[in-house]
């Protein structure tokens, strides 16, 4: 039951991603990517991950706002068509090669519904499930892992977000914009 439901949701996501890539209008591409994100949220909910479903749905809304903000003033239709033939051929070859790699490596995984943590002896997840509530007091085991057992990862993640925000602000700052827009020589040099 869950398997067929997940398969139908994944087919929906693949169709919406193909629509997002090969449509001519930017706005419909962005709406299709929103459909992909919300489908992913439902898939997480079916797979028993409500934390991920909440996070995905909220993040998808914010990224839709960002993408629409970028494209709202530009002409909606793309000017140039798609790519040249050689580029498509090269891309097709790369995709074919990667698909062979996937086909070889996916045979090593257990069948669907057979968690990897049951296969591995002394898997960390078994320890986390067994002692998570007792040693941290948090009954949501995902939060217990995120903020207690593996808090170092969260610290590094906060650093990554800080750096990304810093980079975005430095790119869009008033002073940096004015220098590069007014000075004709620096434009050629930086490129």
């Amino acid at each position, binding site marked *: 039951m869950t398997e067929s439901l997940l*398969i139908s949701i994944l087919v929906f996501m693949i169709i919406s991603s193909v629509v997002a890539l090969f449509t001519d209008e930017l706005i419909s591409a962005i709406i299709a990517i929103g459909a992909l994100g919300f489908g992913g949220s439902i898939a997480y909910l079916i797979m028993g991950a409500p934390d991920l479903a909440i996070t995905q749905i909220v993040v998808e809304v914010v990224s839709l706002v960002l993408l629409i903000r970028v494209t709202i003033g530009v002409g909606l239709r793309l000017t*140039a068509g798609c790519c040249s033939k050689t580029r498509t051929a090269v891309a097709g070859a790369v995709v074919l090669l990667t698909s062979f790699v996937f086909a070889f490596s996916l045979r090593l*995984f257990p069948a669907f519904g057979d968690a990897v943590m049951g296969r591995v002896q002394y898997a960390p997840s078994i320890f986390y499930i067994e002692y998570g509530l007792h040693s941290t007091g948090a*009954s949501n085991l995902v939060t217990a892992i995120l903020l207690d057992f593996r808090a170092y990862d969260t610290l590094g993640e906060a650093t990554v*977000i800080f750096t990304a925000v810093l980079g975005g602000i430095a*790119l*869009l700052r008033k002073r940096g914009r004015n220098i590069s827009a007014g000075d004709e020589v620096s434009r050629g040099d930086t490129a």
Partner: protein
Amino acid sequence: MLYTLTSVLFLVGLFGLLTQRNIIKIIISVSIIESAVNLFLVLVGYRKEGLAPIITRHTSHGKIMELSVDPFPQAMVVTSIVIGLSVMALMIAIALRLYHIYGTYNIDEIKKKQEEEKT
């Protein structure tokens, strides 16, 4: 079957990343690849008839130990989704800056304008 479908989603994103010439389309392809990888990681930890890894009054600790989904990939994917949002914001900042300088989102036209400026 499900693993194959997630890898197909990844390959669609990869094809778009290699062929598209519009910066917004490239950002969209990156986000497709991201969601494919996240789905695959959560799928690896799924157990049949699994429960969400949250202990409440109705699901006792012993039942969770028997039936719970793997919580470890979920914890990693939560950070991955939020990092994806901030990386997308950074990419959009770069795209806006390029649009501000060259007046287009198309990479070929940007290259053409650069060549014109050099000569």
